[in-house]
């Protein structure tokens, strides 16, 4: 399998070579070959999407990047170090697949707990907690126990804890699972804002639209192997076809234009009105309804405050 290069993105934040993970049973007999010889790199300031159906090895790969699982073969380096080393994890933020939180803590306590694990100074910790709570729209519920939250709210707490150390590398496992469309948009905006600040993101998802809209490059996994890889543009562009978007023309001008096109290309051109994608349309409707909190007006403000470098 050809290695997916980080292109112009340097230095490498993640470097995986020949990664294999075999899960064994109690008697050490091989049970599942979850990841089967994958190679990929992630450069600085890019978003790489691990795409694949359930059971394709995305989460296993991610857990090897974090040092939670030990590769059966191959090697992985994160920020130039083995992920087993504690220092390598100092600059990583991780959002697990399901919101793995202490249910008896409040969001504020949760962020304080993780902030302490990163040994953040009390003043920095306090201000960052407030900024993150504002950013994920949970200021109003900051002192309620996480156990009382809906799945979407738990995901927001999960995202906030992943950002508490202002990481260089953000690892997101199914970040939009269980979120409503506005919250999905918020997560994607956050990712793009992080990348603008030079951070790198590894994103695992089986939601194709999410991956397509934010990722620079894709690694498509199936049965533990890489089946396709490359930049989103490379993979999705049909280089032998063209689409032109222009203002609508009067019928007689349109007829003349189509005739000219027909003469040149020798086939019937496809003409249709462009349409918004459903997510954009839905967000417009919500925005028109005036619910600024849902559409993320406060969220954008929060991102700005968190990402303005004053945290």
């Amino acid at each position, binding site marked *: 399998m050809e290695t997916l290069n980080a292109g112009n993105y340097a230095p490498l934040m993640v470097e995986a070579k020949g990664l294999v993970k075999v*899960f064994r049973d109690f008697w050490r007999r091989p049970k599942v070959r979850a990841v089967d010889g994958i190679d990929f790199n992630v450069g600085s300031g890019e978003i790489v999407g691990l795409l694949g159906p359930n059971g394709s090895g995305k989460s296993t790969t991610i*857990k090897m990047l*974090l*040092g*939670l*699982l*030990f590769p059966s073969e191959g090697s992985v380096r994160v920020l130039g170090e083995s992920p087993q080393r*504690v*220092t390598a*994890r*100092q600059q*990583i933020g*991780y959002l*697990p*697949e*399901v919101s*793995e*939180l*202490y249910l*008896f803590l409040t969001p504020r306590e949760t962020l304080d*707990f*993780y902030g*302490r*694990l*990163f*040994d953040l100074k009390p003043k920095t910790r306090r201000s960052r907690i407030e900024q993150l709570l504002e950013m994920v729209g949970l200021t109003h519920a900051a002192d309620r*126990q996480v156990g009382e939250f809906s799945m979407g709210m738990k995901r927001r707490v999960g995202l906030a*804890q992943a950002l508490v*150390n202002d990481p260089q590398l953000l*690892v997101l496992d199914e970040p939009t699972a269980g979120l409503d469309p506005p919250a999905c948009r918020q997560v994607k905006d956050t990712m793009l804002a992080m990348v603008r600040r030079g951070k790198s993101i590894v994103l695992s998802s089986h939601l194709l639209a999410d991956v397509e809209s934010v990722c620079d490059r894709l690694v498509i996994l199936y049965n533990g192997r890489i089946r396709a890889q490359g930049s989103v543009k490379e993979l999705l562009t049909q280089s032998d076809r063209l689409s032109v978007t222009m203002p609508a023309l009067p019928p007689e001008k349109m007829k003349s234009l189509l005739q000219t096109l027909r003469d040149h290309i020798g086939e019937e051109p496809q003409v249709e009105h462009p349409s918004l994608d459903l997510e954009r349309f839905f967000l417009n409707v919500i925005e028109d309804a005036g619910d600024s909190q849902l559409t993320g007006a406060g969220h954008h403000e929060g991102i700005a405050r968190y990402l303005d470098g004053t945290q």
Partner: protein
Amino acid sequence: MVALNQLITLTRLTAVEAIRQPIFLLVTNACIVLTAVMPMVLLHQFGEEGKLARDSGLAFHFLFGLFYASYAACSSLAREIGSGTASAVLSKPVSRSEFLVSKFLGLALVIVAFSTCACVSTLMSERVAERLAVTSNAAGYVIDWQTGWLLVCAPFAAMGVAGLLNYYGRRPFVSTAFLVLIVLLLFVFGVSGWFDRSGNFSSFDLQVQWRIIPASILVTLALVVLCAIALSLSARLGTVATLLCCFGIFVLGLLSDYWFGGTDGRSAISALLYTLIPNWQHFWRADALAAGGLIPWSYVGRAFVYAGTYSAAVLILGILSFRTVDIR
């Protein structure tokens, strides 16, 4: 310094999580109520009521504590791994050894808190037990009903207060009930000193057998050792397998003196097993308190060193095992 701060943070979280588990409150309340009720049903034991109440209290402390220590230790790690919180924490700059040690320290703190309740209950239970009381015009055996009922009611009162705090102040019920229980027990312990056995107000006299405290500390040390064993085993085994192993080790340790402890013709294997298996008899010294006996503090000190060394050795094995475990 960073590692120490992390250790304190994780230890605190483990302790808070442990005292918010309903089973902890259930075990503590059951231990206190049974310890309190025992002297009230022990009548006409030929002057041995105090001893029976004391032995029962220490036995409840040991049994409930063993159950809780082994269950909490193995479920704590298994729950963290199962719920995924372990992977969230270990994806941060936290080493696995630090994680396991903090689990142990957090649970040890909770065991000490449980043991404080059990010890105070045993002290009061011994006071409640029937004794000969002589007044100017009568003599007879009297039970200290007042102290007994105060002790029985303490867990229920604590739950009532916690319920109110939960309703009005949204305080977590289980941990609040436990904290209120500790305060109430100490309060009842102090208040009972102002009354004599017949329930009459008198000058302050706690009338307790302080020599129970060293015996109670020894039991607590046994619980801490079992907690270390259960935690280390749970690094590799599931909850049920860990509990079964703990039960086996408990039985072996209880009979260690009889099975492996003889000096005549003892095989090398017996000697090895005698050294490796924790000897619970070292921690059960209730008999030493009979007939006014005392447990020397030097003995408690030696037991502390033994328990500390044994727990450390077991934890090191647990850490070595946990370092290579896949956290799914």
